[in-house]
């Protein structure tokens, strides 16, 4: 029998029942078994509603992923798999200790029970500390939800110019460049490219002959009180697009095109990569995109591009005779002749600008991990309460319900993380 403190408030030992084995067996239950079974059914019903509770967020996740897979495959690169995996292992280990705590209580092993609960609390706090590190990194770099998404760094760690100028850079223009060494002035930080739909930005532009010669105009557009747009005079600017490839450009000391070249007639809203001249051909392209800015501006510079039709790529008569005549100068660097693997496609996508509404991934991320984190925090408080009671010796082999129920709750928290980890961190 335990030496429980008889401090339980509504308890009176003298209402006619025989010894329950624990002063915490309430008088309205037949016996300890009855109380335990009632509590267990209660916690299972609670866990069932927890499943339904989280399923709403999983629905949001699945729906958005079905509609915008490109956002998930892009934005998950901001998450740190190592931290996520560490947290998974920490939670699994704490689940083991929680399960062991139940076993210890059932076997009257007070010291082991206290140890198991303490380790569980320690693991839960470790989880929260790692989560805090991840969150604070995202807050610091403005990798945030919804319209607060304004990242200071690309997934690859490149520093970016942001809309609100709170990292560094110019206002209302976001520029993404692969080049770490000053390719950002490619557009003088002023260009508005008018790019809209970049959900699959490399599906069309990777076709041959895309770098057609363009005539680009800058147009000053103003907006009156009614919201109608009027255009000023057009000013043609030199924006020669590379036609023959990088080597040709370098040989001719060609000027770098100021604006990206559109593919004529097809998808006028799709941005095409600009090949930076005078650079080694490895991954040296950038795309300029403005997105997600809800601010109204009085006047704007718009770009009007007229492009010559792209030259049709000569089709090889024999499909087996693919090389080497189809390889034009520089082409190999821009567009691989071989069929890209899925991995390479993802790499290409991740190197470009983010798809539109990329912040939605982080909305889902913060909502799901945030709700989960609140559950972890609540679990910490519950286990601290249980630790105090265990130290007081209030649990024994007839009264261990609270330990069992808290452990069940803890397992469901672990269970949800088991799904969150691959769904958020391990997107391929």
């Amino acid at each position, binding site marked *: *029998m335990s030496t429980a403190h008889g401090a339980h408030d509504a308890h009176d030992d003298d209402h006619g029942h025989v*010894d*329950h*084995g624990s002063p915490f067996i309430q008088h309205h239950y037949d*016996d300890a078994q009855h109380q*335990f*079974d009632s509590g*267990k*059914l209660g916690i*299972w019903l609670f866990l069932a509603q927890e*499943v*339904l509770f989280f*399923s709403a967020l*999983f*629905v949001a996740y*699945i*729906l958005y992923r079905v509609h915008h897979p490109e956002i998930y495959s892009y934005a998950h690169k901001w998450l740190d798999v190592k931290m996520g995996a560490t947290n998974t*292992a920490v939670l*699994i*280990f704490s*689940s*083991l200790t*929680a*399960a*062991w705590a*139940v*076993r210890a209580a*059932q*076997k*009257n092993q007070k010291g082991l029970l206290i140890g198991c609960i303490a380790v569980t609390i320690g693991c839960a706090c470790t989880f929260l500390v790692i989560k805090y590190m991840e969150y604070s990194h995202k807050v610091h770099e403005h990798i945030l939800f919804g319209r607060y998404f304004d990242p200071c760094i690309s997934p690859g760690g490149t520093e970016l110019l942001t809309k609100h100028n709170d990292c560094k850079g110019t206002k209302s223009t976001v520029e993404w460049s692969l080049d770490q060494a000053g390719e950002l002035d490619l557009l003088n930080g002023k260009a508005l490219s008018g790019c*809209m*739909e970049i*959900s699959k930005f490399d*599906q069309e532009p990777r076709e041959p002959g895309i770098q057609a010669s363009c005539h680009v105009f800058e147009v000053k557009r103003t907006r009156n009180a009614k*919201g109608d747009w009027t255009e000023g005079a057009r000013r043609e600017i030199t924006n020669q697009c590379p036609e023959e490839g990088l080597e040709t450009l370098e040989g001719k000391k060609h000027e770098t095109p100021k604006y990206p070249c559109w593919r004529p007639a097809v*998808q006028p*809203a799709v941005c095409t990569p600009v090949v930076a001249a005078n650079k080694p051909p490895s991954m040296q392209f950038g795309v300029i995109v403005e997105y997600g800015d*809800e*601010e*109204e501006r009085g006047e*704007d510079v*718009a770009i009007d591009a007229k492009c010559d039709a792209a030259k049709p790529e000569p089709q090889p008569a024999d499909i087996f005779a693919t090389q080497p005549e189809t390889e034009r100068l520089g082409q190999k660097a821009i567009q691989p002749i071989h069929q890209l*693997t*899925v991995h390479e496609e*993802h790499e290409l996508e991740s190197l470009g600008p983010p798809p*539109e509404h990329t912040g939605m991934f982080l909305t889902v991320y913060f909502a799901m991990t945030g709700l989960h984190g609140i559950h972890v925090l609540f679990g910490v408080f519950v286990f601290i309460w249980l630790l105090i009671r265990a130290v007081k010796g209030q649990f024994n*082999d*007839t009264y*261990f319900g609270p330990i*069992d129920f808290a452990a069940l709750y803890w*397992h469901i928290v672990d*269970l949800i993380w*088991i*799904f969150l*980890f*691959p*769904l958020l961190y*391990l*997107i*391929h």
Partner: protein
Amino acid sequence: MAATEHHDDDHNDISHVAPARVLLATGGTLLMLTLLTVLATHVDFGANINLAVAMVIAVTKATLVILFFMHLRYDKLFHTVVFVSALLAASLFVGFTLMDTSQYQQTNIWQPSNPPRAPLGPRPTTG
């Protein structure tokens, strides 16, 4: 009630005691599966198969947790009924929501200050 004689083996009058070996084996398997699912992302099976692999591992891990850590294997059948019915309700929830998602047109959102030059047609139906 209140028979509190102490048993040396894993016995409890009120509830089943999880054997130590089962707990250790479950925990070890879960950690191994976590390592496996991280390693699996480094292999390129194609996006869908990679997702399927990750989900199969996650479901396996979840089943282990439910059966052994949460004692459902040794527990009353009614608790299984409660939990599985919650899973069924959740899958109905997901299934019915996804049923008609392809019936809605995509919405193109653009900046009012920078309207597109050409009217945007329906998005190309890829994927």
